[in-house]
């Protein structure tokens, strides 16, 4: 079961996990990313590429499901104006074994950072600035391309 949502509205973690928990896999891993203050950030604006975003997220989820034999994967990403402390993204996975759920969850958030068309604009002291991509995110995504990176 793959669920992908790109939305302005806030989301509930409880509601997001419930369908995965109901699948009977026994192991549900999740990651939530939130707006943090990082040297005075007041707000974030998330832009995306409508149409392509949903396809890219679904493809990532499908890759994770296939690679770790997941029973389910969920990705929710917010767009628009987000205030400090608000949730930006949730990725969650369900599998019969915790190692698969945990590794697939890490994979999803690492790959999402480099393979889904979102752009962050941060506001500090009233001024907006587009966030630069980070080499560390490329490195984190790349480690999943190596054979058996976790073993």
């Amino acid at each position, binding site marked *: 079961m793959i669920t992908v949502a790109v939305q302005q509205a806030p989301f509930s973690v409880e509601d997001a996990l419930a369908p995965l928990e109901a699948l009977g896999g026994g192991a549900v891993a999740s990651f939530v990313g939130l707006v943090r203050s990082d040297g005075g950030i007041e707000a974030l604006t998330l832009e995306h590429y409508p149409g*392509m975003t949903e396809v890219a997220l679904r493809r990532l989820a499908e890759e994770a499901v296939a690679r770790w034999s997941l029973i389910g994967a969920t990705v929710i990403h917010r767009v628009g104006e987000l205030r400090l402390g608000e949730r930006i993204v949730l990725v969650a996975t369900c599998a019969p074994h915790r190692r698969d759920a945990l590794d697939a969850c890490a994979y999803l958030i690492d790959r999402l950072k480099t393979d889904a*068309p979102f752009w962050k604009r941060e506001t500090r002291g009233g001024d907006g600035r587009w966030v*630069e991509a980070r080499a560390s995110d490329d490195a984190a995504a790349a480690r999943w391309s190596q054979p058996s990176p976790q073993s």
Partner: protein
Amino acid sequence: MPTILYFAWVRDMIGTAEESADPPADVTTVGALAAWLAGRSEGHRAALADLTRIRAAVDQQFADLDASIEGAREIAFFPPVTGG
């Protein structure tokens, strides 16, 4: 005639989110299209001057600069992504 989309600071610098383009026949790749679009305005030139800072998608799939644009309906230029 493909639609050209711009996102984030690429869009801000060019001043438009979407335009159509009818490139000449010898413009067959993403990189060549970017170079050709750079001639459209000062904003285009500034945004597309350094293609190492630009990423692209052809029909909503990430594409390298040497990817073909033949038959493409939608080509997008944008900065490296920063979601999550």
